[in-house]
Structure formats: C-alpha cells, structure tokens
C-alpha cells in the first residue's frame, strides 16, 4: 500500500511539474491535460523501473521516454496537435537536475582544492554526476524521439484538418 501511495505521489507531482513547464512553451489549452497525463505515466513508470525494480537510471529514463513518445503520438491526432506539444513538456520533469547541480558543485570544489587526494575525489564526483546527467538526458531525448521517427506519417499528419 505504501509503495502504491508513493507511485501515485510521484505521478501527481510529475503532472504538476509538466503543466507548469509546458506553460512556458505556450501550448494550446487543450494540451495541458494530456501533458499532465503523459508526464504522470512516464515519471511513475521510471519510478517503478528504477526504485522498485532496480533498473539503472539511464535505462529507466530511456524506456519511460519511449512510452512518453508513444503516448504523445497516440493522442496527437485526437487533439490535432503535433506530438511534440505533449512529448517535450512531459519529458521535462525527468531532467536530472540534481545531478547537474552536483556536477557544478563538484567542479567548483575541484577548483578550490590543493591536495591531490581531494582533487581526485572531486574529479570523481564531477565525472560521475556529469556523466550520469548527460547520459540520462541523451537517453530521455532519444527514447522519446524514436517513436516520432518510427511513426513519421502519423507524427507529421496529426494536425491535418
């Protein structure tokens, strides 16, 4: 039961984040609810894959992003919007911001250290966090792009009136 509550909580907060971040890119009003739904499903799926089933964050992000891309293509013709309208904002809550922040922090620590041992430690942190951040972002974007490129006809004719 506790796990179920955590999954729901993750989905709800991802939906709120997706609505807010999608507002920055001025989507049609009808798109908000789909952004929220797709982001909730995608983020909750990543939570299950990584936290419950122990999958690596990179693979979890890739699979979740792939599902996000598929859902966006499914909903796009119904609302007559390009699938990017839903897919991109739904992806934003999955950005590994804390890894990016820790990379910056490690970089700054690196500059301020004199001893070799400390330098090596912070160089390790910089590489670990930086690499994780870059790979997660790349996996996310690639995972979400694959359905759009696989189903080109459907993706690019969604707005056909």
């Amino acid at each position, binding site marked *: 039961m506790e796990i179920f509550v955590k999954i729901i909580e*993750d989905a709800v907060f991802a939906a709120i984040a997706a609505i807010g971040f999608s507002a920055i*890119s001025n989507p049609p009003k009808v798109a908000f609810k789909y952004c929220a739904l797709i982001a909730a499903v995608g983020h909750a799926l990543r939570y299950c894959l990584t936290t419950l089933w122990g999958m690596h964050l990179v693979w979890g992000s890739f699979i979740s992003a792939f599902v996000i891309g598929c859902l966006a293509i499914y909903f796009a013709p119904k609302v007559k919007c390009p699938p990017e309208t839903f897919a991109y904002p739904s992806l934003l809550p999955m950005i590994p911001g804390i890894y990016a922040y820790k990379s910056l922090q490690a970089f700054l620590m690196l500059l301020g250290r004199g001893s070799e041992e400390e330098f090596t430690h912070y160089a390790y942190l910089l590489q670990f966090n930086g690499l994780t951040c870059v790979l997660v972002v790349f996996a996310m974007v690639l995972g979400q792009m694959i359905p759009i490129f696989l189903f080109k006809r459907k993706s690019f004719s969604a707005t056909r*009136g």
Partner: protein
Amino acid sequence: MISIAMMMTAKNKSHVCAADASRFLANYSAYLWGYGATCIRITKNVNRMAESLGYRADITILPKHVAVALTDETSGEYAHYTCSIKSLPISYLANTGMSKLSWDVAEGKVDIACAEKVMGRIFRTPLMSVWHVMCLVVLANAAFCRLFGGDPIAMAIVGFATLLGYSIKNICLKHGVDVRAMVLLSSFVSAIVGSAGYVFGITSTPEIALGTSVLYLIPGIPYINSVSDMIDGHYLCFFSRTMQAVVLTCCIASGLTLAFMIMNIKIF
C-alpha cells in the same frame, strides 16, 4: 481522385508564381523555426505546400537564416528566397496553427494570399497571461523539488525563489535585456533565495532546495530540439541549438556560483 489533385495543383499554381511562393515558404519557415519547431517538421511542412503548388522545394536551414529554392520541373521556372529567422518565444500554440495551415494550403483550402493573412493572425495571437504562467511555473518548480526528495519547507523555499526569479525574468523581458544577462540575473536571485535552507537551517534538504531553485530556467526544449535535428542529419542546426542552450546553462551555473560566493556557502 488523382485528377482532382492535379486540377487543384494546376489551380493553385496558376495563382502563384515561383517568386511569391518561395517568399511565402521562406517566411513560413523562419516563423516556424522561431516558434520552436524542429528541422524535420519545417522541411515536411514546406515540402507539403510546395508540392501542392507544383514545385520541388530545396530548403537550406542555417542557424540565422532559412533559404527556400523552388523549381518547376516541367517549365524550369526557378525562384529562391532567403529570410532571417525570427526571434520569437517558443509557442506550441503557434506551432500547431502553422502546421494546420500547411495542410490547408496543401489541400487547396486556402491560397497563398489567404495563408499569409492566417500567418499574421497566428503571429498576433496573444500568449498566455504572464501571471498565469508564473503561478504554474512556481507550482511546477516546487513539485520538481518534491520529485527530487525535498521536504515541504524546501518546496516552499523553491516556490518563493522561483516567484522572485521569474518576476526578474519578466521585468528583463519587458525591458529588452539580453537573454543571457536575464538568465544570469534570474538564476542569481533564485539561488540567493534558494540558499535560505542553508542560511536559516529550516529544512532537512537544503541542497535540494538550492539545486532545484534555478531549474525552471533550464532551456529544455532547445536541448530536445537539437537532438531531433541531430537524428535527422541537420548537424549545423544541432550544433547551433546545442550551443545556444549550453550558453544559457552556463549563465545559470554562473548565477548559482555567484550566489554561493555571496552567501558564503561552504563549498570552496
């Protein structure tokens, strides 16, 4: 069916010379890029319209310009038009409207003159209210903080940091401040407020509050668009979009670093 399509093509073409069509299509591409469309979408939409007008389109998309060359393969008529890319806020509402317009032109529902008017209407469509966007972004960033494991006080700190940072962003936009300076300033203000957890010791997750406080500034859409361009082989556009996003990310990092130094947060 085929004869109807041919008649439609002939009808459209009889109204539009290659020069007018290339001017319209280059302008269309420049606006679509400005609204945040990927290269593959721009190419598909332009080709669709050009084909319906009876021309073969060759599009060159550069970081600052778009060039459209139209050739009538039967008569040999040729026209070329280059247009500067418009600097516009990313808008999926406009993106959707422009994509619909391309289908309308391709299916002969509107002619080029009418399409230009529709494009003007799309351009003038008001964006979402700044206040509404700000409220949604504040909630989104607070929710983001929660997703990273922040406690309710960290969420409140992030919400307030976002409110102030986003207000600064809006003020800068209103006064036409350079985007890089705007991002740096907003990041700095958000990070100063976001460091409240460290300064007052009121949250058990001050690191998450500080790290999340600037994330609403991350240029996510340009990063995603750049990968799409890379997959589609538009390497110049990929590089250009990536560099734009990287520069903005560096500005965010600089604002954050300045805040670290001023607030004397012990990371040095």
